[in-house]
């Protein structure tokens, strides 16, 4: 089980070390400057939401944080070290869950993939798989194939597989974008509960501004063409969040207005 990364008890007054740091990062792909420049620190244990108009490079920024891309300029660091390749401590939840799951393995088999890779012996795997599936609400569906499951269930399965890595950081790329509104809200709350219990850091990319405010401790708004940071907004709303109460909170509405104006101005 991952230790809550908040346990950075320092006696000296230095700021909490950024878990992921973007240090003047720029990326040119296919001759186009997708990102130019982003400097950003992700605090351990926080839920950071990234929003922006289309073309702002938010998915690209996430893939840089995952180590799937290498920056053309600048450095992406994980816990101080420059990232040259993806790391097991960083799990990625892709938007197209159907393509990120193995169709020939059952739900249990898909979760097992992550456990096999970290070298867990077979005897222990079964118990851990059951635990993880229960955690995402898929207990009893262990023998189903992904094609037999609904979109929401498949996304939960992907999250379970990511949790099997015991990640310190969860990178989520519009994970609920392809789902209907009710499923989406249910998964939002489930995700908040999961994150609270595991203490993982989350970077959550979304185009849904209300979702960003609802979930996040901080919201970063990117400007498009090329991508750069335009707005950093701390979210001072009480936790635990509630779908009705939080969304009616006056501070929520104020933040929403600010974010809407930012996006509209940047398009």
């Amino acid at each position: 089980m991952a230790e809550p990364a908040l346990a950075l008890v320092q006696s000296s007054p230095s700021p909490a070390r950024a878990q992921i740091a973007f240090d003047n990062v720029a990326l040119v792909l296919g001759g186009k400057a997708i990102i130019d420049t982003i400097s950003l620190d992700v605090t351990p244990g926080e839920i950071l939401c990234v929003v922006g108009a289309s073309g702002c490079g938010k998915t690209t920024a996430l893939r840089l944080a995952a180590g799937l891309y290498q920056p053309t300029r600048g450095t992406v660091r994980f816990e101080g070290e420059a990232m040259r390749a993806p790391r097991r401590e960083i799990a990625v939840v892709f938007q197209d869950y159907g393509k990120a799951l193995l169709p020939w393995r059952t739900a249990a088999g898909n979760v097992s993939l992550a456990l096999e890779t970290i070298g867990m012996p077979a005897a222990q795997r079964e118990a851990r798989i059951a635990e993880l599936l229960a955690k995402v609400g898929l207990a009893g569906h262990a023998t189903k194939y992904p094609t037999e499951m609904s979109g929401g269930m498949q996304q939960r399965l992907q999250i379970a597989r990511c949790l099997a890595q015991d990640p310190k950081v969860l990178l989520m790329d519009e994970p609920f974008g392809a789902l209907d509104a009710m499923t989406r809200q249910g998964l939002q709350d489930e995700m908040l509960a999961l994150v609270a219990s595991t203490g993982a850091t989350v970077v959550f990319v979304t185009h849904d501004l209300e979702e960003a405010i609802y979930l996040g401790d901080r919201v970063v708004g990117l400007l498009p063409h090329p991508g750069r940071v335009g707005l950093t907004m701390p979210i001072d709303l009480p936790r635990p969040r509630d779908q009705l109460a939080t969304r009616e909170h006056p501070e929520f509405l104020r933040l929403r207005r600010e974010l809407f104006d930012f996006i509209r101005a940047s398009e």
Partner: protein
Amino acid sequence: MRWSAIAWRLASFGVAAGLIVLWQLAADQRLISPVFLPGPDRAWASLLRGFTTGDLLTKLMGTLTHMAYGWLVASIVGIALGAMIGSSRAMRIYVAPTLELLRPLPVSAIIPVAIAFLGLSQGMALFVIAFGSLWPLLLGTIHGFAAVEPRLYEVARVLHMSRLAVIFKIALPSAAPDILAGMRLSLTVALILAVVCEMLAGLNGLGQWVLLSARAFRSADLFAGVMLLGVIGYVTALAMGAAEHRLLRWQAVRR
């Protein structure tokens, strides 16, 4: 199995049996000379005779052995080579166009070349069968490996999977449907080439059996041999179908 399905199946057998009866009538009435068309009774008798006192069994095993060896070699080479080519974009660019060019070539044309090198021998037959069966399998495997969902490769990178693990846990299962489809085709090719090589080189097998029976105008033996060849074709197709069904169970399930 639902009752109606069983009933239809029985009716279908009935129709087939009816056609056999017609065949028997035609043979009895000598509508076609018995030199060319033996009745099913004579063909069946020849079949039994061949297995009990004759050497039909050794001929059958001969063909099956030729097929098996050739197809096995083709499978190993085809899957290994296909995996290498299919998973490397660079190799595909260099190699795939040439393979596409060679695809429509009738593979039996390699027989005279093989004879030139190896003579009318067992070795020639094995080479031809292996070479001929290789192509559908190679092309199918390349296609399967080339079509692996790229997102899964990214998942593998994030999970830090070893190269071997990626091949066996992601690429191979993903390519399995295409590989199996290629295997189906290559089994068919193996049977055809085995028969042709046996005919040409006089090797121990059903190809030789049917040709000699024809030359001696022993039509009952000839038909018995042809039926056996049909049985081989049928059984291998059935076996492949069962293998596909078992390995590709996940494709069948739908929400």
